[in-house]
């Protein structure tokens, strides 16, 4: 069933490739995609390019050194490095600092929210707590998430940080490609149809 590129298709593509900007590049990628068996899922990871940003040498622009360290510790509790990479490998804290800094122009209220949230954590001496104490505090802050009869003064802070950390992690190459193994943005000759009999009845 799976369609291969025919010689006629290939001839047409070569002709097109010569005529359009970027065509040669597309042709190379498209035929390369065609060589892969679409069920050899791992082969398709090759289409995910590296992250063009140099997060490793990123210096905080919005958060103070203390705020940055607190946020980094908090992020690593939310998305830890375990058998797969976590927030630290994905440079989540650097990305958040970059975004919040850039909010100055059109969304300054976003900066206020982050200042307040990090201020609240500083008041709890988050930075000087032991790892176990930090996790325990995050747990208490998160309580209303599971049970909305519960209240915690840090829930707003938890919500703000979690939403952003989760977004930053799963939009990073580490989160999306290495951890989730997202297979999209590929070059395929055929869409992989569902061939599981158990999915064709309910």
């Amino acid at each position, binding site marked *: 069933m799976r369609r291969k590129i025919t010689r*006629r*298709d290939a001839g*047409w*593509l070569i002709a*097109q490739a010569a005529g*359009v*900007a*970027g065509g040669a590049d*597309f042709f190379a990628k*498209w035929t390369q995609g065609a060589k892969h068996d*679409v069920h050899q*899922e791992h082969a*398709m990871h090759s289409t*995910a*390019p590296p*992250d*063009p940003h140099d997060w490793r040498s990123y210096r905080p622009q919005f958060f103070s050194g203390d705020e940055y360290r607190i946020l980094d510790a908090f992020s690593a509790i*939310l*998305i*830890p490095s*375990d058998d*797969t990479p*976590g927030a630290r490998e994905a440079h989540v804290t650097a990305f958040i600092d970059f*975004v*919040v800094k*850039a*909010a100055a*122009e*059109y*969304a300054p209220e*976003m900066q206020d929210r982050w200042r307040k949230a990090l201020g609240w954590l500083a008041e709890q001496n988050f930075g000087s707590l032991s790892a176990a104490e930090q996790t325990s505090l*995050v747990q208490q802050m*998160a309580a209303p*998430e599971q049970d909305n009869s519960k209240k915690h003064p840090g829930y707003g802070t938890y919500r703000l940080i*979690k939403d952003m950390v989760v*977004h930053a992690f*799963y*939009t*990073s*190459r580490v989160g*999306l490609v290495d*951890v*989730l*193994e*997202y*297979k*999209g*943005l*590929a*070059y*395929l*000759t*055929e*869409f*992989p*149809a*569902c061939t599981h009999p158990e*999915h*064709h009845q*309910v």
Partner: protein
Amino acid sequence: MDKYDVAIVGSGACGGWACMALAQSGFKVVVLEAGSHIDTYKEFKHRWPYEMQFRGAGQPGFLRKYFKGSTEYNYRIMIDDRENPYTTAPDKPFAWRRSRVLGGRTLHWSRASDRFSDFDFKAASRDGFGEDWPISYADIAPYYDRVERFIGVSAAPAKLPQFPDGVFLPAMPLNCAESIFQAACRKIDFPSTPRRVAQLTRMWHNRPPCHYCGNCVNGCDVGAMFNTVVSTLPPALKTGNVTLLCDSVVSHVLTDSEKRARGIRYIERYSNKEVEIGALVVVLAGSSLENTRLLLNSEPGGLANSSGVLGQYLMDQVSGSGVSGFLPILKNAAIRNDDGKAGGLYIPNFTNIGVRPKPAKFIRGYAMSATGGAMGIPAFAPSLPGFGSDYKKRVKSLYPSFARVWLSGGEMLARKENYVELDPQVRDKWGIPVLKIHCTHCDNDRRLYEDFFERAQELFRAAHGEISDAKPFLSTPGSLIHEVGTCRMGNDSKTSVLNSFCQTHDVKNLFVFGGGCFVTTGDKHPTLTMMALTARGCDQLIDMAHKGDI
């Protein structure tokens, strides 16, 4: 003054088609496009979220302020609201999503290509509300054929009277989640078929097939999805009969003392210089509402408005939040390319067409869609409770099982109270008065939405899905980007602006293509019908010209 046979305003789905059809018939055509000429092969490429500065969301606050409804991927081909404002009453918001670029919204549309049926065209005769269209399915069917044959629509025959089949390329296969939803549809007797999309599944008119990257609405990098620039424009330009004027903002249709259109006045986008060109025929194809705005601005009280209905009967289809959750059978499944075709399963309308014994609490109908699987960024993750390693594992396990059912479009009733007019104060960057839009939902629209919400949950349950997000809310009108009406067609020149060929009753050599002519929204996606009506109107124009009748 330069003179042409035909001046076409706009280069989207309808402008592009008109340009091709008329140029191939030997007319000297000029196309005026307010936006710029971009090279889609250079501009569009696969872009991963992490390749962009702000991971697709744009600088905080920027898109929300100036490019509503767009993303970091595509805002450069969308309207800048600073240059192109519109107004509404404070309590009646309307979301008007626009593009100004060669090819218009075809560059980033959802590609859904459905045929209307007589259930749509003749709905008023069935339930007594509003007006029938002046055409029936038989009038337009040959033009649907012609458009489908050219643009390429991948679809499967469904053999449903309310959802006519056409000339199709092979359908794209369903992914796992969609297969499960299809089985669920069979169980509860909902019709279903792969979404019909103008996206190629094989080589077609010198365009390559889809390579399933799923990047469609950010712009197709190879021209596998239909857009003007890769499809209708190349053969039009090949005739040598076409002059393309981009960055040309049209302000007026010019008329002579005998009430005939004699040309166009436009403003050069960057120099602000006013230019007039002459044309024997003027074709407006700059989108439903821009066409109406242009007519309103061309003459006090509106050009071709002896009926007084120009601007009235504005509609968008009813849309709102859908239902999402997980299909447990897909938890922990191996990750597959699930979103590469950016399609889904389509559930055509089955309400108020006589196939269900129980009458609905509303008139007209709606269509739903369903899809699921590993859909890029896991949108469900922020609201999934918890954190830590356990949370990470749950996100991974749920990732391939995510599923959603959404409202593809519900019929919004055509009501006189929903209308557009020129704002007496506000002007755009070029000094042209902007539209003031007045649009609200009626009770029928709300009841229809409520019914969808019940049915969507019913479908989810039939698929043994776990619903995680089901908060009903009706979207702001305009949000579905199916805005139509305001220049409706009809047989009676006292109650309509256009005849059934999209020719104005008042000005014989003035045609208006696009959604403006719609008498009702129907429950289908509108673009294919707009294009088929354009093809039909062009035939009429050509025929009249040959008879010396124009």
